């Protein structure tokens, strides 16, 4: 997927101007945290589970040399062919080679953010293959020629009416009403059923790779990933090194966190573990299985101060709780990953310079860190990236001057309090009549989209001192 994160500000402005899309995002931002909170409360010891998984994930990453070698050995013994890819291009090339070796024409693909990262579909299509996304959301956006707006729910930005029009245009199925959501799902089901049955190769991602037995865990509700994994003669699992966990029980414990955080379920409809190709006497299943492990900067992250980001379980919880994501939508971020996790991963996997706006797409509210089921200190990592930008002089000169001035002032509390009190008094007096300002010098970024409220009389510190004195 082509990186467009350098256009975040323009894209965010466009997204904010689309009132229907804003309303849709508001609705999603309201109900997704409710679902997650209910599941968390019902579980009871969610925090203990979160800490347990964090310890296991950290242990896995600290000893990844051991667990990666173990996984490779077990997966190979299970009959898989394990491949390593340094770069996105290398992963794409490995997958295309496998498809070509089998004379494949059609590929049925399950949801995989890794293959979005490598733009695998475009690569395979250029290689002459027909590639069909089978997750309903991914299928919708593939038909629309768009990219995912959310890592878990890629087409949630589209209305039912838009999807209806899309299906009427893309599916040559004659006159039909397609009035309800059920009608739309049914139509996609019948079209995609043919895809599953005719596919030569199935491609899926993996939620976890289990070192002790070489199994790969796949978590879905639709079952499309399982159809991709079981019907075609060749299965390719495209995944990354950081998915490795020591034991089967670690994978299912992580699943407890993942399902509750994402959809509020105790377990998704399908949680499957696949070990390799069809066994002797087995009636179905792939005849050949490949696991392609992509690095794409992850070993650099492993050795860096951002290592904790590799604990991410791709649940989308931080997106669902982020006010910036809710306001601007996933497409504004300009790449595969969006929201707080995307604002960290995108610079790390691509370039901090090109995606300089992303670590700054943050209100510092800290909500993402509070809700992250992997307990990743997302606000701290975002701040570290901003700090790095500042050190590398990527921050605009006026911001650098402003930050320097603020830093200088912040360590002089008396002067800080005197100046803020003066400014507050002036603004209070000037804005007393109207209660707000539609224009203010140096604050056009704010006043161009909304009024700036006139401050009440006195700063916090003035009021605090006055009350303390009164109490005495």
């Amino acid at each position, binding site marked *: 997927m082509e990186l467009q994160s350098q256009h975040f500000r323009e894209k965010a402005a466009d997204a904010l101007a689309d009132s229907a899309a804003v309303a849709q995002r508001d609705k999603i931002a309201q*109900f997704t945290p409710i679902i997650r909170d*209910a599941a968390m409360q*019902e*579980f009871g010891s969610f925090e203990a589970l979160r800490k*347990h*998984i964090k310890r296991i994930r950290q*242990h896995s990453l*600290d000893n*990844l*040399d*051991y667990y*990666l070698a173990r996984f490779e050995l077990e997966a190979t013994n299970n009959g898989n062919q394990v491949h*390593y890819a*340094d770069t996105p291009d*290398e992963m794409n090339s*490995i997958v295309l080679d496998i498809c070509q070796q089998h004379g494949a024409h059609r590929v049925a693909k399950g949801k995989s953010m890794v293959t979005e990262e490598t733009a695998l579909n475009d690569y395979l299509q250029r290689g002459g293959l027909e590639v069909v996304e089978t997750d309903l*959301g991914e299928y919708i956006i593939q038909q629309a020629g768009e990219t995912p707006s959310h890592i878990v*729910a890629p*087409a*949630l930005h589209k209305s039912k009416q838009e*999807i209806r029009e899309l299906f009427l245009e893309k599916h040559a199925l004659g006159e039909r009403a397609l009035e309800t959501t059920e009608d*739309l*799902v*049914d139509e996609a089901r019948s079209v*995609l*059923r043919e895809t599953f049955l005719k596919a030569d190769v199935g491609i899926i991602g993996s939620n976890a790779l289990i070192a002790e*037995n070489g*199994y790969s865990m796949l978590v879905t*509700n*639709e*079952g499309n990933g*399982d*159809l991709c994994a079981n*019907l075609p003669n060749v299965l390719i699992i495209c995944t990354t*090194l950081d998915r490795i966990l020591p*034991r*089967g*029980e670690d994978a*299912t414990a992580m699943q*407890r966190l993942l399902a509750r955080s994402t*959809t*509020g379920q*105790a*377990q*998704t*409809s399908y949680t*499957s*573990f*696949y*070990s*390799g*190709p069809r*066994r002797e006497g*087995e009636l*179905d*299943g792939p005849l050949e299985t490949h696991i392609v*492990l992509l*690095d794409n900067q992850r*070993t650099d992250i492993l*050795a860096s101060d951002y290592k904790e980001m590799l604990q991410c379980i791709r649940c989308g919880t931080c997106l669902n709780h982020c006010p910036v994501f809710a306001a601007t939508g996933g497409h504004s971020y300009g790449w595969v990953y969006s929201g707080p996790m995307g604002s960290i991963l995108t610079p790390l996997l691509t370039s901090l310079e090109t995606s300089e706006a992303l670590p700054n797409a943050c209100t510092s509210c800290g909500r993402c860190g509070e809700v992250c089921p992997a307990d990743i200190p997302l606000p701290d990592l975002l701040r570290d990236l901003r700090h790095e930008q500042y050190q590398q002089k990527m921050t605009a000169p006026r911001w650098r001057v402003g930050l320097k001035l603020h830093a200088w002032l912040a360590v002089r509390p008396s002067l800080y309090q005197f100046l803020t009190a003066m400014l507050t008094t002036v603004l209070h007096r000037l804005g007393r009549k109207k209660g707000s300002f539609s224009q203010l010098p140096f604050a056009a970024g704010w006043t161009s989209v909304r009024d700036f409220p006139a401050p009440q009389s006195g700063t916090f510190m003035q009021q605090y001192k006055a009350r303390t004195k009164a109490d005495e």
Partner: protein
Amino acid sequence: MSSESRSRIMAKVRGASRGQGAAAIESELAGMGVAPTAPLPHEDTCIAFMANVLRNHGTLDIAGNRSEAVKLIGQYIYQHFRSHRLVAGNDPHLAAMPWRDGGVLPRFGEVEPGEPVALSYAQWGVAETGATVFLTGKSNPSRNNLLPERHLVLLDVNNLLPDLESLWRQIEPNIEAGSRPRGIQCIAGPSSTADIEAQLVHGAHGPRGWHIILTGGATHEQLQTAQTIVACDDTLGGS
């Protein structure tokens, strides 16, 4: 190309790892204890399982014996498809059913496109999540769990496990003996999607209905208790 990449990646991973020996790593892992499990909705494992199946939008029948199970399967198929035909895996538990008692005409093997209903024998059920567990293999083609409109599952309540950790303990002897099943499928509901305007719809790609016939001593009273638990969930706005 891949082997060079492997060497490069392995070298970088080694450089970033702690470099501990296997014994130290395994000991550290063992010291981390076990993950907390979800609380069961009822102290009776069977009721807890039933309640979670219902929460997962599954349906249940209780069969006192094998003959009754066949009759219930026959009724279910006739009610939905006005048919007596069924595809069942080659599992010995299914082959031994008294099919004539329910007027059911089973075909043993794998589901072909267009065949609307399949029956699978679940090796285990997990009370914690209401999942039914299948090991793919000669007797259980995976497509039977995925392709039909309606997926029927026969499960013996004596094979209910409290949680997912217990499931691994059951499977591990197979894994260690080198007879690893190709697939372990935990199915906890009908195929579903909420990808269009977040509206839940069943039958995204796989079964629209997931129906479990419990044998081995489950009672209708237990089912009623499970139904009451789920009704209370709905009243309180829970799961």
